[in-house]
């Protein structure tokens, strides 16, 4: 009984897309996406280049709004609110749903100011020093950075910079953290540290991660979505969701032929 309610709580849906089509100008980029992202799970998006996995990721925090020709059809729900409803302010969305990018992109400011930027613009009134320490600890960077908080964030190594970016995203206390190939620009040791970090972070956050690295997806994630791409006659490329299931199922017993071929390394 107890374990049942626990399972029910754990599979609570945070993000849900319904019949989502994404266009850039007149070109369809993503076709008919229906999927649920579960709370406190790590969901990874895999698939060949150009399949629209990053595009979908950026639909969740409305970062695609920066692209003028972008247009979404269908629904993206966040805790039962329609993210693309007219009254929703994208700025508010991004304060709830944080993002870590492919290339580490700390601001050219001190480590301390990198972390306080988000809380400050959000009007955080608490103790900044304490928040900086807590965020850096959560991102497993505190020990390396505590003696040089006043130094530039750019003085850190690549892996440290990426953890700084994670700390910066955590500092605004989002519910969801989106990660767009967060380890693809890092060396194997830094990658491992980020992967370990993800396991700790999922206690508190819901994480969606785009990755090109299938071992990474199978190591870190609870759920995996496989996307594929098909060329159109006019030279466009349309991405679509092929299969979405528990990670073991995707890697060991996929239902679709294409998934089987992709995860066994036969294309992509």
């Amino acid at each position, binding site marked *: 009984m107890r374990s049942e309610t626990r399972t029910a709580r754990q599979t609570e849906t945070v993000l849900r897309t319904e019949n989502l089509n994404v266009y850039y100008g007149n070109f369809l980029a993503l076709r008919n996406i229906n999927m649920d992202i579960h709370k406190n799970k790590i969901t990874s998006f895999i698939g060949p280049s150009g399949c629209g996995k990053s595009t979908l990721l950026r639909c969740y925090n409305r970062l695609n709004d920066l692209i003028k020709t972008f247009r979404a059809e269908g629904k993206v729900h966040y805790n039962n609110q329609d993210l693309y409803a007219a009254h929703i302010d994208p700025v508010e969305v991004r304060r709830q749903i*944080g*993002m870590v990018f492919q290339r580490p992109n700390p601001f*050219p400011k*001190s480590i301390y100011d990198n972390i306080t930027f988000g809380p400050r*613009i*959000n009007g955080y009134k608490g103790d900044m020093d304490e928040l900086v320490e807590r965020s850096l600890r959560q991102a497993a960077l505190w020990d390396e950075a505590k003696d040089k908080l006043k130094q*530039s964030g750019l003085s850190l190594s690549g892996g440290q910079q990426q953890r700084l970016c994670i700390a910066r995203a955590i500092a605004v206390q989002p519910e969801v953290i989106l990660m767009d190939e967060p380890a693809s620009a890092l060396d194997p040791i830094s990658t491992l540290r980020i992967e370990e970090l993800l396991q700790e972070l999922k206690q508190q956050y819901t994480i969606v991660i785009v990755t090109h690295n299938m071992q990474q997806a199978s190591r870190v994630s609870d759920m995996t979505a496989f996307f594929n791409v098909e060329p159109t006659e006019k030279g466009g490329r349309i991405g679509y969701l092929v299969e979405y299931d528990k990670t073991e199922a995707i890697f060991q017993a996929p239902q679709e032929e294409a998934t089987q071929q992709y995860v066994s390394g036969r294309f992509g």
Partner: protein
Amino acid sequence: MTPAIKKQSGIQPRSPWSRKLDQSFIWLTRLFALAIAGVLIWIAIQVAIAAFPAIRQFGLGFLTTTTWNPVNSQYGALPMIYGTIVTSAIALLIAVPVGLGVAIFLSENYLPPKIQLAFVFLVELLAAIPSVVYGLWGIFVLIPFLRPLQQGLNTYFGWLPIFSTPPAGPGMLTAGVILSIMILPTIAAISRDALISLPSDLRQAAVGLGATRWETILMVLVPAAFSGIVGAIMLALGRAIGETMAVTMVIGNSNNISPSIFAPANTIPSLLANQFAEASGLQVAALMYAALVLFGLTLLVNILAQILVRRVQRI
């Protein structure tokens, strides 16, 4: 038994020609770089030599005395130094906020790309107007245009020293406004380049944290482009300090120090342009001394800018 190494597989020495070419290219660039420094030093030395009689006669008192009288050979440059600094300060006070605003507007995606490019071109065109045309425009358009404003300020705020003299038309404010228009394209164009060349990662990082467009621009992009923007301002200031023709035409050419920005005044370049043709003897030396002071002033401004940029970039 090891086979003999074939000649072709070894690392071949480069042809002597190609090496000579490399060497001479390095020397050529060295020569060009040295030539620039050489011209600069040459000018400085020539000016200093020509100024020497005045330096011997007046010493540093030249910088602090206010009389400029060719009749009894009394020369002091303080009014012109003061006029140069005040007009340049007014110009920066107007042109920095406006220029930066233009740069931000033209680096964001507020406008469709084609219209934006047209605007960029128009701003740069401002820099192509000859300064004598600015001067004429100042006399015939700007002075009448500013007169009601100056009169109003003098009537209602005349108790403030900076508005205390009745406006005559030509004066430091008019010169400062003309200068601000002349240096606007420099500030706008170079600051825009600095903003545009920032990696798009920075904007995405800020926006991804829930920053609005203004927060992104003011708290992330402008600070990141700070050194480029300071560079733009310094270049502009250099032009403002050295501008001659347009200033001469609208400043009133009066060697006085007045706290009021409506008062006619003079600047060092304007003094040189006005007096050089008829000068002889000690007056030439005094003018050269003034030129040397101008030289030093720009150097000082550039050094200060470098220090400012270093201090900010250390973070």
